[in-house]
């Protein structure tokens, strides 16, 4: 490389690291540091107290964990669930169905009762009144909430990302073959066009929360770099898939806007997922041990990736339904089928990802550590049985921790990954200048090492922190979520991604057994990219900061059932008068 090239390489190294950190810090501040007010949908009046109703699904009880806390010994710790739907209709239900709930003197047994503004709720003798907020009031309140992006402009963050992409392209220009360069430029160009048109579309519909998309585009940028470095001739596939991914992300987010529709479709989605897995078990081809590839018309894809999206969907549930059907049996059965099918396919890594996600979901739904421990011991027993019946399964993991003792065979990939990762140092050898890409599965299973080698450890860590940031954001959003459905979906999504990322990174570095799962967004491969983007819609669904997410219906679009309720109230008022 000539002097100019060396200079440009060093310059781009510094700029890339600085920009990546800047992007992460800006997203971190706006996602986690800024204060956001909760939405308020109405009030519960108890005596002189006026308790805000902050969610669509609320637990009324004496417990500290109750959403509407009534500190009166007559009220049970978890007494009733107060639910509001998309249309603005309120319902209340006795959690344990023991008949300690009356509405307007009407006895509510196990079924739920409709509620209207001004209705009296009697919880075992403690009376309270529901005060619904009419649209105009809610709009007023909404205007007082701090909006997203007030202090940190999302456009500036996106601009930083664009500069990041241009400098990454520059690094590729220094190392790529001349005939591959136009394609690489097209790849990065597509990213820039996509992220800005997506941003503008959001602005037009008045949505300003763009951190999730920015981080997803940041990760996709590194993924594009990995693809450009390892398979420059196939880059058009990556570009097309990226466009499809973003489109599906938008569709999925739009779909999630309607809670009732989303919740109703859980069973069809579950059936679809099972069908995909059945096709997978039946027809797929084995690629190095795992039969997780399905080839359709020259394009191969991994059905298990799409099943991930469905799995989270099926696992999510609204709060009232959670208390209505208190057992998890149907979900446990669904999960067990998924995990067993994946184990049959030989994709143990993905099976483990599903299992941990199952644990997160079932813990969130049941709150019972006993259930989780039971599931873990059952899985451990199943694993033990599988290993004792088919010892070759254990052999696949036999090199774990000893890879340097067998650098030619079992430890081949991991030792190559580690020496390539180390040789990149903190700043990397430059995009496209590594050698690990020549090793099988470098751009999927060993993508962390490949990033370390080419872009350096700091950028590789930035990539991990982007995912961690999304996870923290999911937890934070869940607390203010309208419905448990979105909260569970967001948390399940991020635990799935975290586990997957952990297995990917630590498997290739011999800290965990090498199972060969993908790094969300970054690993080359269409199905993984599609699934990662689609799952981001769950995060958008849970994000109800003011005017932040396109996947959340804004307050002024939520009206419908309001007028009839008002009419009824008038009638009743008239009677009383």
């Amino acid at each position, binding site marked *: 490389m000539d002097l100019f090239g060396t200079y440009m390489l060093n310059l781009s190294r510094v700029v890339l690291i600085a920009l990546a950190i800047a992007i992460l810090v800006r997203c971190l501040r706006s996602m986690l540091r800024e204060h956001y007010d909760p939405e308020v949908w109405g009030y519960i009046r108890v005596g002189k107290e006026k308790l805000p109703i902050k969610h669509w699904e609320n637990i009324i009880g004496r417990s500290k964990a109750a959403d509407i806390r009534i500190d009166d010994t007559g009220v049970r710790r978890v007494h009733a669930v107060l639910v509001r739907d998309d249309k603005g209709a309120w319902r209340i239900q006795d959690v344990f169905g023991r008949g300690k709930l009356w509405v307007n003197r009407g006895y509510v047994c196990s079924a739920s009762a409709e509620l209207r503004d001004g209705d009296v709720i009697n919880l075992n003798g403690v009376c309270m009144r529901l005060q619904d907020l009419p649209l105009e009031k809610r709009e007023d309140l909404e205007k007082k909430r701090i909006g997203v992006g007030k202090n940190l402009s999302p456009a500036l963050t996106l601009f930083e990302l664009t500069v990041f992409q241009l400098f990454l392209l520059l690094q590729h220009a220094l190392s790529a073959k001349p005939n591959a360069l136009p394609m690489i430029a097209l790849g990065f160009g597509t990213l820039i066009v996509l992220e800005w048109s997506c941003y503008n579309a959001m602005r037009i519909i008045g949505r300003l929360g763009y951190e999730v998309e920015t981080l997803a585009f940041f990760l996709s940028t590194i993924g594009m770099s990995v693809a450009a470095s390892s398979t420059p001739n196939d880059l058009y596939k990556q570009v097309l898939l990226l466009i499809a991914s973003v489109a599906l992300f938008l569709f999925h987010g739009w779909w999630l806007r309607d809670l009732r529709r989303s919740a109703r479709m859980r069973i069809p989605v579950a059936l679809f997922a099972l069908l995909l897995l059945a096709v997978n078990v039946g027809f797929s081809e084995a690629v190095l041990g795992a039969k997780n590839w399905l080839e359709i018309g020259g394009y191969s894809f991994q059905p298990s990736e799409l099943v991930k999206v469905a799995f989270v969907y099926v696992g999510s549930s609204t709060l009232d339904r959670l208390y209505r059907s208190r057992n998890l049996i149907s979900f446990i059965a669904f999960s067990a089928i998924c995990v067993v099918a994946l184990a049959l396919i030989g994709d143990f890594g993905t099976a483990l990802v599903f299992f941990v996600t199952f644990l997160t979901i079932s813990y969130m739904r049941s709150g019972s550590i006993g259930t989780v421990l039971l599931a873990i011991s059952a899985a451990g027993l199943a694993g033990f049985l599988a290993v004792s019946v088919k010892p070759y399964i254990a052999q696949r993991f036999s090199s774990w921790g000893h890879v340097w003792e067998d650098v030619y065979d079992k430890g081949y990939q991991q030792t190559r990954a580690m020496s390539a990762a180390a040789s990149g140092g903190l700043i990397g050898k430059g995009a496209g200048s590594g050698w690990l890409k020549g090793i099988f599965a470098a751009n999927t299973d060993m993508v962390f090492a490949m990033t370390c080698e080419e872009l350096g450890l700091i950028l590789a860590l930035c990539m991990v922190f982007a995912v961690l940031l999304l996870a923290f954001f999911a937890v934070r959003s869940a607390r203010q979520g309208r419905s448990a459905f979105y909260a569970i979906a967001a948390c399940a999504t991020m635990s799935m991604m*975290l586990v997957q990322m952990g297995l990917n990174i630590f498997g290739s570095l011999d800290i965990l057994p090498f199972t060969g799962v993908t790094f969300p967004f970054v690993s080359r491969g269409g199905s993984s990219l599609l699934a990662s983007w689609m799952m981001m819609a769950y995060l958008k669904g849970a994000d109800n900061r003011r005017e932040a997410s396109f996947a959340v219906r804004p307050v002024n679009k939520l009206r419908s059932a309001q007028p009839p309720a008002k009419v009824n109230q008038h009638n009743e008022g008239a009677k009383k008068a």
Partner: protein
Amino acid sequence: MRKLTNRAVSVLIIAALVIIGLNLYILRYIDEGREWAMAFSNLNTDSTGDLMDRNGVVLASLDERGVHFNSDETIRVSNYHVTGDAWGRTSTGLMVNYWGRLQDFSLITGSTNSRTASLTLNIDSRINRAAYYALAGRKGAVLMCNYKTGELLCMVSTPAMDPIDVSAIPEDGAFINRCLSASFTPGSVFKLITAAAVIENIPNIDELSFYCEGEYKVAGVPIICSGEHYTQTFEQALSNSCNVAFSQLAIRLGQDKLLRYVKNLGFVDPQKLDGIPTASGSFPTEFIGDPELGWAGIGQSTDMICPYSLLRFVCAVGNGGVLCEPKLVSDGKEPVKSRYLQESTADKLKQMMAYNAANHYQGSLNFPGLALCAKTGTAELGDGTSHAWFTGFLDDEEHPYAFVVFIERGGGGLSQAGPVANSVLQTAVHG
């Protein structure tokens, strides 16, 4: 909702595990990153450099396009286990063990490029070639070392391969360096070790005499000798390689004492040649009883030694009991010296080995012009075949060479390994 979202802490637990894992990796990277980057398989280097033998013959060189080997095929093949190949298939090859010396590493920039680093070996590729030819297609190992300086002049293991021939089907065991990475039944060369222990522990050994009529019984178990040697002194017993005499001596020493010598002289634990670990050997450690101890004392039973350990032994004997650790790479430093045997023991052994060579191996006939001190070994393997060993050194101020020749299932020590030793020594002395 709050009840449920409080449980979202499970996501944070997973995140914490990921963070712990990352920290673990970073610590490992700081600790072992250099080693990883120095692994031979790491191609992130633009370093250029040559790997040369002691005469400046380039065995392999490294440039931007990769590794290149000497253009002469016999040089390439005879030095295969010294250089290794670009795939690192022989664990002792310098491509594996010294790749790191051709590059630099820092935690911040990773592997750094553009360094010229050449490596000169003590190996003489001419001697290697002579040894390779002398082995003539048999499986075996030849080691030769200057016992006064520790320079390792010759290291050949067969079968070998051409490092540039990707498609060659490797012969069985071609990747194993028999000089360093394997241990074999020693047979009679082990009597040197027993003799060393005898000299230091039985003060009146020269006054004793041993009677051999070809076989005797220990506790009813026969110990068979190669011939009938009748009455003989200790010196004569070694040159006769008398099993009867040496098994009696081993039994008299006792298992513990003999084991201590075998261990202290480095025949059990792995040694290191310039950092390259060698194979470990074995000697019975559990109580085995007199008959088996008799066999163990003459290098049979479950005895195994690595040819490299034997080289260290003969080097020390040749150098008056002081061992100059053999060195593969020439770095201009003084040899590492250590007291290996008492001087008197070494001198006594030297005298006996000189007597052997002169009187029993027809030194002037088989090894013309060489001041040879040597011992043969023919290790019975119980299936009718035997390993051929020939080891010793030249008692010659100008040519202080110690050597080990080993031929796997090669037959008689003197008849098979002897000529190989002669041809290697002649090349070393006369060029």
